[in-house]
């Protein structure tokens, strides 16, 4: 868990501070943010022909990304080097931070006076939608046309990087970023441990859950899992919840239809609690870190690990050929695969970048077919696999990953991350699921809590729609 240095910004408390607070209050008398509210605006996107970065003069492109894990870091480093070799007048200044760190600092960076040119923004309401609403990201539709991103990428994937022009809705509207990597949550398995219990990778969901009992009675840990960091349970829960179909969950997440306190949610939560109770998950999983759990699995503790493809390169390094990866098995043999997933964080251009065209060329380079091949060589899943992917042996774990990705996309079986649904859903889900696992919260109460959060946000959205329909008027005040 590197780079988790504390960064609290907190006023200190002493007597004169309080006494003089009123004085300073007068000095600070302006409403913050009043200058950045040009929703949906932005400057970039005027280009009509393929920009040539070579003619841009001496340019420094500041890039903030979160690809610090082994495989992705190596791949981005190599591509940056190649881009600078192709355009010696361009210098890529890379600032790489872990996901949590980037998420926490990006807001200040993009709203500051000297924002980076390219940033990796997380999809969903808290980050990408909020940035667009504040007019901080440049729409990329123009470039998508010029560079043929529209045809290079499947529509479903591009849609995850879209925000409505008024900056209020996610998954539709203008394009605000392009993702380099694909990702899905799958079942990693330890081939040795399965063989020792006389098991093979399961073909159906029932077979899989049956194996868990068998592994347990053989004295092995069926599923390695650590939830001290709160979010891992969202992925596991997502896999369980989408078992009965991708479409309803997708409609829920995008706010199109449905309620969260439905049977699927309750049953998925009940299954998770049940797994923990029966010892299919480590005892006290809430006390074990996510990275620690992955390390334990890599060292042979646990037959399965349910997590994302971003872990593959690191796991493979420790386990080699003993590592296998498959999608969560379908209900019937040979049925269409289904899992939580989508794509890596979007690479976006900030609206105040001085070199939007160079930045666009950089994004094109990072997501090109050549880049896909570089990613494949580093064990990273490209959103759109290239030629190198076709040469990867299908029996290797990389081959399994690429094959599953292809099948998931063909079957339209990718279910978006549940925390996209509302700005506060990450908190609601992660806190609630810790309670469910510990047995401190019933599945029904968890579902009800999630629904309360969801319904409140939907109501807020509808109210916004009414205001928008009523035409321009004074901005609605908080109360």
């Amino acid at each position: 868990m590197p780079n988790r240095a504390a960064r609290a910004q907190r006023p200190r408390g002493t007597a004169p501070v309080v006494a003089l607070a009123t004085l300073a209050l007068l000095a600070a008398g302006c409403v913050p943010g009043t200058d950045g509210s040009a929703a949906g605006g932005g400057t970039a996107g005027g280009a009509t022909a393929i920009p040539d970065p070579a003619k841009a003069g001496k340019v420094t492109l500041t890039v903030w990304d979160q690809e610090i894990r082994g495989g992705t870091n190596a791949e981005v480093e190599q591509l940056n080097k190649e881009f600078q070799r192709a355009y010696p007048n361009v210098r890529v200044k890379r600032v790489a931070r872990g996901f949590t760190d980037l998420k926490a600092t990006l807001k200040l960076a993009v709203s500051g006076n000297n924002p980076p040119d390219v940033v990796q923004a997380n999809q969903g309401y808290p980050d990408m939608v909020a940035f667009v609403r504040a007019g901080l990201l440049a729409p990329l539709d123009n470039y998508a046309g010029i560079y043929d991103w529209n045809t290079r990428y499947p529509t479903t994937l591009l849609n995850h990087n879209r925000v409505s022009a008024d900056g209020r809705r996610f998954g539709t509207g203008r394009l605000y970023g392009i993702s380099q990597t694909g990702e899905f949550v799958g079942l990693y398995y330890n081939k040795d441990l399965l063989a020792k219990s006389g098991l093979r990778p399961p073909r159906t969901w029932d077979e899989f859950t049956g194996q868990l009992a068998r592994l347990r009675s053989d004295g092995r840990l069926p599923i390695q899992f650590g939830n001290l960091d709160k979010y891992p349970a969202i992925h596991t829960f997502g896999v369980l919840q989408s078992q009965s179909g991708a479409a309803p969950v997708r409609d829920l997440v995008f706010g199109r239809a449905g309620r969260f306190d439905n049977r699927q949610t309750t049953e998925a939560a009940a299954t998770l609690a049940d797994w923990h109770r029966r010892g299919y998950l480590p005892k006290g999983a809430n006390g074990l870190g996510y990275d620690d759990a992955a390390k334990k699995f890599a060292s042979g503790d646990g037959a399965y690990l349910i997590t994302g493809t971003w872990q593959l390169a690191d796991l493979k390094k420790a386990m080699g050929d003993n590592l296998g990866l498959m999608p969560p098995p379908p209900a019937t043999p040979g049925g269409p695969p289904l899992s939580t997933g989508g794509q890596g964080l979007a690479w976006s251009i900030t609206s105040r970048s001085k070199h939007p065209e160079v930045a666009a060329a950089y994004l094109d380079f990072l997501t090109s077919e050549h880049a896909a091949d570089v990613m494949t060589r580093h064990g990273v899943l490209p959103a759109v696999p290239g030629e190198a992917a076709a040469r990867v042996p299908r029996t290797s774990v990389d081959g399994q990953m690429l094959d599953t990705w292809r099948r998931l996309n063909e079957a339209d079986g990718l279910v978006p991350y549940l925390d996209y649904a509302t700005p506060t859903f990450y908190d609601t889900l992660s806190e609630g699921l810790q309670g469910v696992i510990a047995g401190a919260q019933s599945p029904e109460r968890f579902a009800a809590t999630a629904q309360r959060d969801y319904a409140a946000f939907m109501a807020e959205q509808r109210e916004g729609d009414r205001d928008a329909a009523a035409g321009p008027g004074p901005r609605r005040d908080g109360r």
Partner: protein
Amino acid sequence: MKRAPRGPARLTGRYARRAPGEPRAVGYLYVLPALALYGALLVFPFGQSVWLSLLHWDGLTAATWAGGDNYHDLLTDPDLRAPFAHALILLVFYSALPVAIGLLLAALLSRARVRGMTFFRTVLFLPQVLALVVVGVAWRSILAPDGLLNDTLEAVGLGTLARPWLGDYDWALPAVGIVGTWVGTGLCMVLFLAGAQRIPRELYEAARLDGAGPIREFLAVTLPGLRPQIAVALTLTIVAGLRNFDLIYITTSGGPGNATSVPAYEVYHRAFETNQVGSAAAIGVTLTLLIFVLTVGISRLVEGRRT
């Protein structure tokens, strides 16, 4: 300043109107640079925090006026009240326990002549020297389900007591608290040892002549003699306990559920993770006031009676 006695010194000009050592206007000139720095770095940001706490602001788009809404929420929203309750519970571990244990250790160490005293003092003081981030990472692995603590419990046959300390709803808060106790005790002990050395030996001799046992002696001589040190220790540990952020951030992120969320963590969480800057500022301001009130209270309580 008009209170300065007017006297025969009128001849020597206006300076003589004051007794020597009495503050003069020119003195403010000397502290002006420091005052300016203090104002720019502490008072101004704090004023801004107060201002932000009166707004609804997501940190990005235009803010709207909130008035007392954010403070009203602090009183009514259980998710916002819980962190303050947790902080007060943690004060037992961060402040009361270190002071109590520190007193005990100081009493023992100052009475008995311990071989290698400096070594023990250094070891006990060591947690103070480490960055809290390091402390957090180390304890996170000690308290892990298969960490040192549980392994030890199993080894001595107390396996039934083993649990995922940081992931247990009932035990996470005390577990984080124990880390705070571990950090704070050394500081308290060193403070008290230093204080105990300044207590005149005669008092102890007198107490012994009067037939006081070790406990009586501690209560009658050591404890009153350590009053100023106790005040300092309480103030330091309470402030450290209330602004505790790093330990929570590293060990539990406020979990499981929100069982270990504290105000300082909630400030960070709301300001940087959930785009609720106004609410975060309101928590920060409230926390500041709470610390202020508690520290003033302590100095009144412990030091006030001496003069």
